[in-house]
């Protein structure tokens, strides 16, 4: 009888644990505009560890979850480079983060990242989210996926979404969301469009 009771309790505990685990999977984590973003320490293609706290002169950051393999991310590389060129000097540098698991997506290995950064002359840190701890915290779901952060007392999320309104083709862009947002931040105005959606490649877990 006692064994039965123990078995019963074990079953209850197992079911409860399973419920918690499955519940967690459905729970949508990630930042919304206005949330405080946490810093991280990730390996750059140069081999150094990079944290946002190292950028003493920055007013904020253009954080881009990007990768080597997604054609939509690749279609945005020139635009990401242009953003870094335009806004690094005024205090909003680009920070690229590759969130993909190289076991699932071999083309997104650290070595492949180094190669890509060299080929395309990336002027910004291209960081590897090794162990995939950072992207779920931010709530990135795809590449490319942009988070604009501004240094206030903490790092505050100011914009989440796409670089502009035509991810597939820069020729048909009519609205530059990230540029508009940074320009607003620089002139202390409210950002008109704070979240946008665009097609992207799901992050490879």
């Amino acid at each position, binding site marked *: 009888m006692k064994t039965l009771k123990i078995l019963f309790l074990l079953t209850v505990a197992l079911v409860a644990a399973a419920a918690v685990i499955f519940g967690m999977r459905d729970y949508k984590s990630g930042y919304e505009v206005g949330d405080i973003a946490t810093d991280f320490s990730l390996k750059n293609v140069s081999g150094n560890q990079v944290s946002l706290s190292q950028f003493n002169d920055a007013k904020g950051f253009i954080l881009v979850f990007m990768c080597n393999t997604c054609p939509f991310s690749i279609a945005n590389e020139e635009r990401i480079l242009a953003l870094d060129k335009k806004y690094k000097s005024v205090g909003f540098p680009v920070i690229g983060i590759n969130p993909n698991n190289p076991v699932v997506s071999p083309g997104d290995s650290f070595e492949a990242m180094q190669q890509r950064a060299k080929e395309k002359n990336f002027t910004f840190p291209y960081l590897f989210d090794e162990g995939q701890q950072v992207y779920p915290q931010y709530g990135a779901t795809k590449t490319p996926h942009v988070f604009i952060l501004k240094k206030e007392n903490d790092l505050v999320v100011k914009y989440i979404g796409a670089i502009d309104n035509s991810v597939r083709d820069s020729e048909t862009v009519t609205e530059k969301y990230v540029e508009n947002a940074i320009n607003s931040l620089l002139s202390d105005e409210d950002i008109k469009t704070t979240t*946008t*959606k665009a097609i992207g490649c799901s992050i*490879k877990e």
Partner: protein
Amino acid sequence: MRYFLLSIFLSLLISGCSSVNTSAGILIPNKIVKEGDVALEVHDFESLKPLFDNPEDKVIKVINFWATWCAPCVEELPVFEKLNTNYKDNGVEVTLVSLDFPGQLVSRVIPFIQKQKLKSKILFLDDPYGNKWIPQVSEDWSGAIPATVIITQDSYKFFEKSFSYRDLALEIEELLEE
């Protein structure tokens, strides 16, 4: 008498609607690109919109967003092909909406369709302004693909994930039982 006329009117209305809404075949594309045995309808979201209406009769619309360059999408295509074959007679209408680069329609998308011998209905969505149309498919969609919508007379379900055949068939079986 008034009710009699009203009921005739209503039944006309309903039957009229059902013939319009039952299939994706009546969508009017912006253009059709023909290559060999493939004729691919090209839409913007405006012309594709009726695809996301609830059907008027017992049809189950299964709409999958994919692209030839999206590895998890290509991996799950056989799942939708199999569903299309196995559940056609149960009123299931599978539509695969390609989000490939418009410039690669002839060089890449059509050859892919031919090589994979895809049997499901395939449409090409050429609409750059995702921030406008993605929320119209679902407010829950971040824009990542693969993504799938399942629509019946009285339900609209959105999934931002990959399906196994078992999971997809389970979804359909549940809807068929209702």
